[in-house]
């Protein structure tokens, strides 16, 4: 696709193993310390969850990685390069979908490409493909208010996929959709991680969701925010989407995480 080809060729440089790395990141809002000296690696091609009670700074960290917020100190490296703002290597999926209410599904999905100056016919062809991929074929000319919450988030996902970024940042993407849609989304996400060669960073407050979809779970604890533990549920990853929830290892990890989080939930 043409929006990749005009990027500088990075093949000559050695590609670091971690797609994204946070190095000693701190963030203060006035006197409030949202993050303190946080370091975390995000392995390439895998899904890393940021899990923690509310107010632990997980969304703040995600927005710092996205370049939407500036850290008070520390740095973010994406493919070994310092982040100083949003970039073509990262795409964001928003908790509240952030769709343009006046624009059709296809224009919403193609919006990232429109901003990059991709010609209309080309960007709509790309958008159409991703609309089909997320299962919204036939809704190209619908408007967001005509779609259900789950369908709106599929539009948000298609928009993030269509700019073909290597890193997908997802901010509690399934928290505003109903339980059944959410389960379907989680299964789809597993397929997405397996089939697309992308790095996913996924913010959630659901322990089950984190264990179900993640290759690596970073547990963040508040006051001050820090990574308290990194869990890799590797034993359950190879198994089919249907059997994960019955796996003893899955249940053990869910219990273990709840045991370490429960004292922080008021």
């Amino acid at each position: 696709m043409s929006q990749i080809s005009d990027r500088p060729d990075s093949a000559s440089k050695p590609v670091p193993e971690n797609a994204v790395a946070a190095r000693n990141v701190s963030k203060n809002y006035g006197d409030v310390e949202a993050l303190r000296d946080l370091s975390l690696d995000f392995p390439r091609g895998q899904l890393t969850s940021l899990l923690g009670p509310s107010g632990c700074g997980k969304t703040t960290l995600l927005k710092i990685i996205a370049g939407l917020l500036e850290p008070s100190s520390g740095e973010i490296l994406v493919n070994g390069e310092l982040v100083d703002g949003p970039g073509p290597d990262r795409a964001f999926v928003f908790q509240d979908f952030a769709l343009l209410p006046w624009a059709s599904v296809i224009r919403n999905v193609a919006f990232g490409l429109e901003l990059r100056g991709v010609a209309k016919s080309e960007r709509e062809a790309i958008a159409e493909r991703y609309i089909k991929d997320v299962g919204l074929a036939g809704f190209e000319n619908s408007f967001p208010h005509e779609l259900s919450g789950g369908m709106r988030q599929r539009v948000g996902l298609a928009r993030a996929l269509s700019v073909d970024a290597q890193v997908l940042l997802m901010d509690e993407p399934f928290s505003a959709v109903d339980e059944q849609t959410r389960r379907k989304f989680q299964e789809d996400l597993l397929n997405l991680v397996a089939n697309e060669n992308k790095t996913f960073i996924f913010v959630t407050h659901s322990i089950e969701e984190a264990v179900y979809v993640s290759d690596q779970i970073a547990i963040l604890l508040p006051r001050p925010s820090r990574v308290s533990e990194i869990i890799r549920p590797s034993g359950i990853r190879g198994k089919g989407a249907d059997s994960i929830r019955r796996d003893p290892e899955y249940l053990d990890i869910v219990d273990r995480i709840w045991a370490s989080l429960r004292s922080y939930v008021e």
Partner: protein
Amino acid sequence: MTGYRSLFLKVLSAVLVFGAWEIAGRIPVSYSFPTFLDTMSALVALTLDGTMLRAYAETLQPLAVGISISAVFGIGIGLWVGLSARFDWLFSPIFIVMQAAPLAALIPLLVMAYGVGLTSKVFVVCIMAMPVIVLNTGGAVRNTPSSLQEMGRSFLAREDQILLKVIIPAASPVIFSGLRLGISAGFIGAILAELKITPTGVGDIITYSRSIADYPSMYAAIFSIILFAVLFLNLVERLENVLFKGNDRGYVSD
């Protein structure tokens, strides 16, 4: 189907209002209150002998100039006020004072400064029309959902793209409602100027007809300016639907 139904309701409400007017005129509620039919025949007479056309040629000058200035500068200043907190702090109070000022009492000051000609009348139209346009535009821009702006930035929008592709479309329904309110206030201003500064155009027909107790003609002039304003506002609504297609489609509420 709904098109026919809404047309039917519009016609029905017009029949009810004009019917009530006709009855009130026939009772009569006041010697100086003509019936609907008398008013309409006066309107036809004024139109046929060219009086109305000459009147509008005069009234439209301050109205068109004033509304154009108010729309262009009002939306421009409003965007700026909405985007910059400092500019908001500097300019909003001026327009709040302008909106609250008792304009009729200030007209002698305007006449003293700018004379009895077109300039003063344009000023009156602007003072009536501009504050609501500026304040609505500024408020709408300030209230653009921050997640939409964040979305734009994360997908690499430049500042001008965020303004043109996110903020202005998001603010456009409120900008246009400000524009409609401003334009109706501008019409009031234009007539007020013709009644208070020098009697010209439609204001002259109103003043003159009243002085000779030709009430049907007086009400015909008032009726015509209201009709003209309503038609013009409908035109603005059409313009909005052409410029911002999604605006008539409702909003995602949650």
